[in-house]
């Protein structure tokens, strides 16, 4: 086992290269610059590896589109404002059914906001983000180790479903160093027939998103929809922890989930039975797990570093069952476990007194 201490942004680059990423284009933006720099330093050292510092976020995502169509495992990365700019290309890749990995190391917003850790892009990430009827798979790691694992998975999922995959982390996961052991990447399975490389001796092909005929466009939409349904059936992931006897469940992802784990530890020490559901895929959202818990748990506390976005998905999952509470800190504030433990105690005790009445 070769454990190394490595920064989140570097880990994405290293895991991507190990997973066979051979094309990276990006544009400088904090707090993800170390990833771009890592790719500049390292991807050109591997055979066929291309690094381009693009003139814009828009150019970067469109370079990824071209490289992906040409058969490369391709990645771009940015932080919140830059991801907004990339949406045109992400929508196009979804329409064209092209694989690709897009990394969003989120910062405070809206607008330029700040460069501190935030989770304000949940809606954008999980609802497609750009125009049109599409989805992207969204992976939300809560540690640098998981960032390494999910980066490799992201390339496999992108290929498997021929769809863009987003890695959604924040400035804290990107900047932080933690011990990491890199797993073995799986060999790439991607049918050559999807790659445009000139017609050769055969028939020419084209990839396009413009379909002027309404019925044909509808057909394409339904085809994509069926693919998204298949993803929803197969790819939901979440971690559950300390839920066995819980009367209050925290639902949090990424950095917020780490903080929740710390808060739960404190709450448990104070005798409160609190557990955690941590979605790892934000889309598809692991709603089935939350729904199952509603048979035995009445109170849910959604905790996010925003003003309440995943909250909607939790409410949809529960569909009126149980009580859903929310605690959030937007704008780049990283709440402390102590702070969240106080919020937990408040809800927990309110809930107790109600039960006792």
């Amino acid at each position, binding site marked *: 086992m070769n454990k190394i201490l490595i920064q989140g942004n570097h880990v994405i680059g290293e895991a991507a290269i190990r997973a066979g990423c*051979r*094309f990276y*284009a990006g544009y400088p933006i904090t707090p993800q610059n170390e990833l771009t720099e890592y790719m500049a330093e390292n991807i050109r050292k591997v055979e*066929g590896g*291309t690094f*381009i510092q*693009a*003139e*814009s976020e*828009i*150019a*970067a995502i*469109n*370079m*990824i*589109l*071209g*490289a*992906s*169509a*040409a*058969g*490369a495992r*391709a990645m771009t990365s940015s932080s919140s404002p830059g991801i907004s700019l990339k949406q*045109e*290309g992400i929508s*196009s890749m979804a329409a*064209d059914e092209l694989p690709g990995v897009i990394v969003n190391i989120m910062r405070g917003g809206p607008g330029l906001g700040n460069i501190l850790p935030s989770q304000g892009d949940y809606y954008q990430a999980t609802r497609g983000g750009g125009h049109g009827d599409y989805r992207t798979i969204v992976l939300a790691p809560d540690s640098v180790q998981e960032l390494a694992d999910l980066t490799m998975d992201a390339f496999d999922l992108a290929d498997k479903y021929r769809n863009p995959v987003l890695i959604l982390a924040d400035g804290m996961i990107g900047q932080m160093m933690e011990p990491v052991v890199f797993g073995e990447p799986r060999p790439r399975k991607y049918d050559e027939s999807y790659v*445009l*490389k*000139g*017609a*050769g*001796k055969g028939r*020419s*092909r*084209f*990839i*396009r*998103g*413009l379909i*002027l005929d309404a019925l044909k466009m509808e057909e394409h939409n339904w085809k994509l929809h069926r693919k998204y349904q298949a993803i929803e059936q197969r790819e939901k992931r979440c971690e559950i922890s300390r839920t066995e006897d819980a009367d209050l469940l925290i639902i949090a992802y990424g950095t917020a989930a780490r903080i929740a784990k710390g808060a739960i530890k404190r709450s448990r020490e104070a005798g409160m039975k609190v557990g955690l559901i941590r979605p790892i895929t934000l889309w598809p959202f692991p709603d089935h797990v939350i729904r199952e818990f509603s048979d035995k748990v009445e109170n849910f506390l959604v905790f996010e570093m925003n003003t309440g976005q995943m909250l909607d998905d939790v409410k949809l999952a529960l569909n009126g069952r149980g009580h859903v509470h929310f605690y959030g800190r937007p704008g780049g504030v990283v709440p402390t476990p102590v702070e969240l433990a106080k919020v937990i105690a408040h809800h927990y005790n309110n809930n107790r007194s109600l039960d006792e009445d």
Partner: protein
Amino acid sequence: MKKVFGKPESLKDAIFHYCAGCGHSITHRLIAEVIDEMGIRDIAIGIPPAGCAVLAYNYFDIDMLEAPHGRGCAVATGMKRTLPDKLIFSYQGDGDLAAIGTAETFHAANRGENITVIFINNAVYGMTGGQMAPTTLLGQASTTSPPGRNAILDGYPVRMSEILALLEGTKYIERCAVNTPANIIRTRRAIKKAFQYQMDDVGFTMVEVLSQCPTNWKMTPIDACKWIDEVMALSFPPGVIKDIKGKG
């Protein structure tokens, strides 16, 4: 009987949707002829734009990848860097290349990407219905410059070929037209040269084609062809703008 004219192999059997007198269909055919002549149909990949030529993949019998509006040069960059042995060309209109895609075009040229851009300049946004383009001439009426383009309000026509020629990354840029038989032959020669440069790894090449748009110019096809020589060519003079290999 001797065959004097035929459809190039690199074109499909589809009928062009372009308006009568439009320069796109001529330019499509020239590209296809050059691909046939050079024997590169197996390795050619075209990147059509958003605009009138958005359906180019219905006509070219080569691999094609549609780019989002203006992003042809970025998409081509991604493809070419991944498949350096293929012939990659983007096909872009004036709005696509010189307005919404200026940055992508400029920087691909500046990086000296070994790609070829076929730049169709018809001084108007064709597909959306004749709005003012970056290349619309001063005084030229369009649906968004109804009294004619006014420099004070609308700025000046952009000469992309001259601008890009200043960049060290560009190797060959020529402005041609498809309004007369002589000009068509010249355009064909320019396309062939650009493709050959790309095959020889020379670097960024662009052929600007002054292309008639009778529908949006509200002219007959014949008048439109004349207008290119008499009016448009004054602002966009045809000729070799840059050729690092000298006169070829």
